[in-house]
């Protein structure tokens, strides 16, 4: 963790300091080896405990900042670990190839699957190319085309959600951002193949839901799924955008909150420090979960599964009926 560039999270400072101490100690291992190794062991244990403590008590806003970090693995970082022989596919057949929403085909544990997902950038230049993972109407239409293709050829669909929200620009409105998302919402209920959606990092409202209709919804442990960003919510409801901490707490955006509300189905555990501290382990954990869930879903008939999908979303929401 200490050789990550530009770590700006203040709650990780004690961890970084301790890691530095451990490093220094390792360097002077030349003389007095036994004592040094004993000290090293003590420090490493302290480090692990400290990390565990910090990461078990992250506030929602801290989680949001954690998943927005540059070194957080993106969709295309996970795919090589999860799928074999995979190829990325392009185009919405309508004049655009949105780089913020990627899709492709590959093999999960031997069987062909189709995947779509939001793609963030790894550094500033990449982020501009990828538009920070904010998809335009072309992206949603590309996702729809690929998902319809998968439906026709009976491939299960895996979606990966990691977006600050749908792109809010003039072009996006002109090309029908609302319509693109709405059509995706409706069509995803019509697919006969199993759909598994995973929220990898930030699930930004309608932009996330545009590829977020599934039979099973998975969510990584430190990921967040918001109806509005805490900053926007604070600005509108509290009339003060600096109160984003309160807004984040009130909105119930963490994976455990959403499991309680019934919005997601399973929480996928991340290594301590988030998936960025051990991308390979995080990806392999996710791969296992995906295989397990897909096996369960494939036991149903198409009609049974579609009805279960319908009922799953039908039940969401609370009200009094006098």
């Amino acid at each position, binding site marked *: 963790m200490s050789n990550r560039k530009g770590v700006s999270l203040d709650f990780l400072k004690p961890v970084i300091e301790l890691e530095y101490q451990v490093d220094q100690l390792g360097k002077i291992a030349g003389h007095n080896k036994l004592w040094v190794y004993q000290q090293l062991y003590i420090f490493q244990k302290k480090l692990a405990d400290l990390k565990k403590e910090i990461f078990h008590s992250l506030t929602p806003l801290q989680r949001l900042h954690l998943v927005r970090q540059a070194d957080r693995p993106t969709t295309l970082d996970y795919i090589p670990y999860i799928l074999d022989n995979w190829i990325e596919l392009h185009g919405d057949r309508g004049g655009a190839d949105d780089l913020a929403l990627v899709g492709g085909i590959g093999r999960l544990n031997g069987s062909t699957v189709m995947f779509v997902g939001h793609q963030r950038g790894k550094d500033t230049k990449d982020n501009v190319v990828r538009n920070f993972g904010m998809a335009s109407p072309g992206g949603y239409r590309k996702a729809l085309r690929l998902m319809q293709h998968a439906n026709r050829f009976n491939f299960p669909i895996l979606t990966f959600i990691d977006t600050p929200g749908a792109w809010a620009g003039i072009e*996006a409105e002109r*090309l029908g951002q609302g319509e693109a998302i709405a059509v995706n919402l409706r069509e995803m209920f019509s697919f006969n193949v199993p759909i598994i959606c995973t929220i990898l990092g930030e699930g930004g409202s309608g932009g996330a839901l545009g590829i977020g209709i599934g039979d099973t919804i998975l969510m990584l442990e430190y990921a967040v799924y918001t109806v509005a960003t805490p900053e926007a919510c604070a600005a509108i409801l509290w009339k003060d955008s600096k109160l984003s901490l309160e807004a984040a707490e009130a909105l119930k955006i963490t994976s455990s909150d959403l499991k309680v509300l019934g919005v997601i189905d399973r929480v996928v555990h991340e290594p301590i420090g988030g998936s960025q501290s051990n991308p390979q382990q995080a990806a392999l954990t996710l791969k296992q979960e995906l295989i397990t869930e897909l096996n369960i879903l494939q036991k149903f008939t198409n009609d049974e599964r579609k009805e279960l999908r319908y009922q799953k979303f039908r039940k*969401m929401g609370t009200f009094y009926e006098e």
Partner: protein
Amino acid sequence: MSLSEWLITKRSKSIKKNIKQIQLTVPEGLWIKCDQCGLLMYFKTLNKNHKVCPQCKHHFQTSSYDRIEQILDQTSWKSINSNLASTDPLGFCDQKLYGKRLQDMKMKTGLLDAVQTGTGTIKGISVAFGIMDFRFMGGSMGSVVGEKLTRLIETATRLNIPVIILCASGGARMQEGMLSLMQMAKISSALHKHQQQGLVYLPILTSPTTGGVTASFAMLGDLIIAEPNALIAFAGRRVIEQTIREDLPDNFQTSEYLFQHGFIDLIIPRTKLRDMLYQILSFYYNPKN
């Protein structure tokens, strides 16, 4: 106190006593000034013209009750699920408790939530009609709006009748968090089943229709109808300005703008809405006239 000061205070006191305040108060709302052209008119004139300015045709905001009167046949309205009320699933408290806000809104509008659903007829054709009311928390979509609209569409699917939903919303209700977002999915799934049965769905977009509503049922119509000069958007204007730091086109996010770019079938002024709805519905329900 000097003599001149004493004189001044004495004079101001006596002046105060002598000025009689002539109170000429006109009861609120008797005379209404048009926001667009400034025409001053008696409130009954405005109401008789469907709350549309007779001079410049500016469409004022109306309540859901007005809409029922204006569009459906007299006495045909049968409200359903009017007893659904919101809970507070997140225990949300911003500047006011969510529960308290709901109560205040109930007092103000007489409604339990931001939508009225039911069945009625338009010149004899049975329709399932849902009307969103912007006065209730900005027409925001929460669990109850989602549930009522879903039940309305399911009823229409069962009774084999078309659905007309009048959209007027500021977006998803943040106080209900992710449950509000999921209502978008819920309503879209019900519309899918309605579509599978070969039935017609006509959303009518009024000002404003924004956010989660635009990204779900407002844009899924078989024919999409809008009122003139209505604000129809996905992202808010201010958000777009802050994101791209550019000037926006003049008629950006109005019904005319969406019409030019191919997202709306018809722009129908409110005064002609009832007749045109009948004309459209009769194409589907009386094809061989």
